């Protein structure tokens, strides 16, 4: 036997045995297979099959002609995107707004969860928690009209800052682009912080109370308990949610931006979602909307995989 032949033989045995062991393992795990494979087929049908429609990104799609008879245009829809200065501006705005939102909504909801957890009075705790979740049920139209009136020349914010002597004359908050991201992030945090807290509360609820009891016996302070029991208890949840959210980096939303933008701040307010709505849907250009959508998905998935990889490298819980 030559060396090559030996290698080949070795290769065959390992692969074959691996193959064989794959099927035997699968057979052994048949209950898990029953629990997951039908769901897998469902997901493929309902989520992956429709993506065949992505061909329209490479067509000049007309609903009347369908996928089969619309004209093919190659990459021209993507070229239109890359040639448009507004696309880059909106790209920047999307990334910046969603990054700010990511940082602030994560930090605030964790802090709120920790503080809620420290409330001893059960009734008060439940009341605060319920109330903090109410804004989630207000539509953006209502929230934005409140934002606009709070920030108006004679609104609460200007009154307060004037009263404290921080500003000398009222500021037109929505008239300057560089305030826009801050305003939007604050509105977002306000609306969703209570809602985002719920998931951490659930994680805290799962922490074994015995740990706290033991810590008290050891004379741990409130902050030590937070630092060494509560935070580690919700770390996994935090990391997983963070990885997932990083994958939505391109989704900065469109409703609040649409409602709060105006001629003066438009360079900071337009997002890719608004871009797609404008050039895709309003102009019936389903192809361009799809092309932009594919682009966003690609970036999202790349970010997701990167975040997941980093988590793996630093030895954290990971998504995939």
């Amino acid at each position, binding site marked *: 036997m030559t060396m090559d032949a030996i290698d080949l033989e070795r290769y065959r045995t390992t692969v074959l045995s691996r193959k064989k062991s794959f099927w035997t393992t699968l057979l052994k795990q048949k209950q898990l297979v029953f629990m997951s494979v039908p769901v897998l087929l469902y997901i493929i049908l309902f989520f992956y099959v429709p993506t065949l429609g992505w061909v329209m990104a490479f067509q000049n799609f007309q609903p009347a002609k369908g996928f089969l008879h619309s004209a093919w245009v190659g990459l021209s829809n993507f070229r239109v995107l890359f040639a448009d200065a507004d696309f880059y501006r909106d790209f920047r705005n999307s990334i910046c707004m969603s990054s700010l939102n990511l940082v602030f909504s994560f930090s605030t909801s964790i802090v709120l969860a920790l503080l809620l957890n420290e409330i001893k009075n059960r009734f008060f705790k439940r009341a605060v928690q319920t109330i903090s979740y109410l804004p989630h049920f207000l539509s953006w139209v209502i929230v934005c009209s409140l934002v606009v009136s709070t920030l108006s020349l004679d609104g609460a914010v200007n009154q307060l800052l004037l009263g404290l002597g921080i500003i000398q004359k009222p500021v037109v908050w929505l008239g300057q682009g560089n305030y826009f991201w801050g305003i939007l992030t604050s509105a977002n945090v306000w609306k969703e912080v209570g809602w985002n807290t719920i998931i951490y509360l659930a994680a805290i609820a799962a922490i074994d109370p015995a740990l706290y009891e033991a810590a008290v016996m050891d004379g741990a302070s409130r902050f030590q308990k937070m630092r060494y029991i509560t935070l580690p208890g919700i770390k996994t949840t935090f990391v997983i949610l963070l990885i997932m959210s990083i994958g939505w980096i391109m989704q900065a939303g469109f409703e609040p931006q649409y409602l709060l933008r105006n001629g003066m701040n438009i360079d900071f307010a337009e997002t890719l979602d608004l871009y797609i709505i404008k050039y895709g849907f309003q102009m019936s250009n389903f192809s361009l*909307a799809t092309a932009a959508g594919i682009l966003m998905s690609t970036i999202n998935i790349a970010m997701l995989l990167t975040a997941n990889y980093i988590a793996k490298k630093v030895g954290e819980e990971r998504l995939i």
Partner: protein
Amino acid sequence: MKNTLNRTQINDVIFNGFNGIFMLLLIVVMLYPFLNTVAISFNDGLDSVKGGIYLWPRIFSLQSYKAVFFGGAVYHAFFISVARTVIATVLNIFITTMLSYALSRREYILRKFITVIVVLTMYFNAGLIPYYLLYKSLGLRNSFLVYIIPTMISAFNMVVIRTYIRTLPESMVESARIDGAGEFRIFLRIIFPLCKPILATVALFVAVWQWNQWFDTFIYNSGVQNLSTMQYELMKLLTSTTSANSNPSLVGGVGATGATNLVTPISIRSAITVVAAVPMIIVYPFLQNYFVVGLAVGSIKE
């Protein structure tokens, strides 16, 4: 020793004080807009347009609520909404948790493959028309099933539940297995009950999402009044009030009597917000028990 104890106690008092004040401020900031919305919803529609309503209606009126309940379409739609919310939530929770359990088993040979397939669904969207053509060919158009079938699983919730399951003590699964329990049995008897806090959370997510849906009615069932959901009926009313052409009643009607019994977008929007949110606010405390009060995991362990 006594000194340090005192200091800890003082620190505690200070902390609790500040925390309490912070929470009270939070209550004000979070509650005010909602109370404001309630006040506007009970105010005369035309008068609300002037602004300046805070916590109490200026001219009390039930006209917005009358408009919401006028014609009675909302009542039937309410039952459709409840039905879809309950059925879809139960199904979604069961199937998603089952999948989460399977994918939480580190030894499961298809785990990674299926996880990737499921997780990626969160990051792309095939577009409206492809979904429409698929649902149409599956006969889901003009059917109640379109509320249920496409939403039987949620990737986000799968991840959340799986993460939670992994924090549960592995020893319990092991001992059950030694006792000869199969995967289904372990899932139903051990994992499912232990997951209550996270299932309450996820159920809330699914239920609120289902409850707030109107888009599927709009695209797939808009021609069938019997399948209309409450959110869709509310959207209908809102659209009809906010469109400039729809409200001839509002136009030019300067009568000597000054008829003011008019609904306006601002009053209708507020009434709709209240009507849509109330059921969720009522349900909330029941679910809240599971994640705010906490679950004594230790006691179940035995």
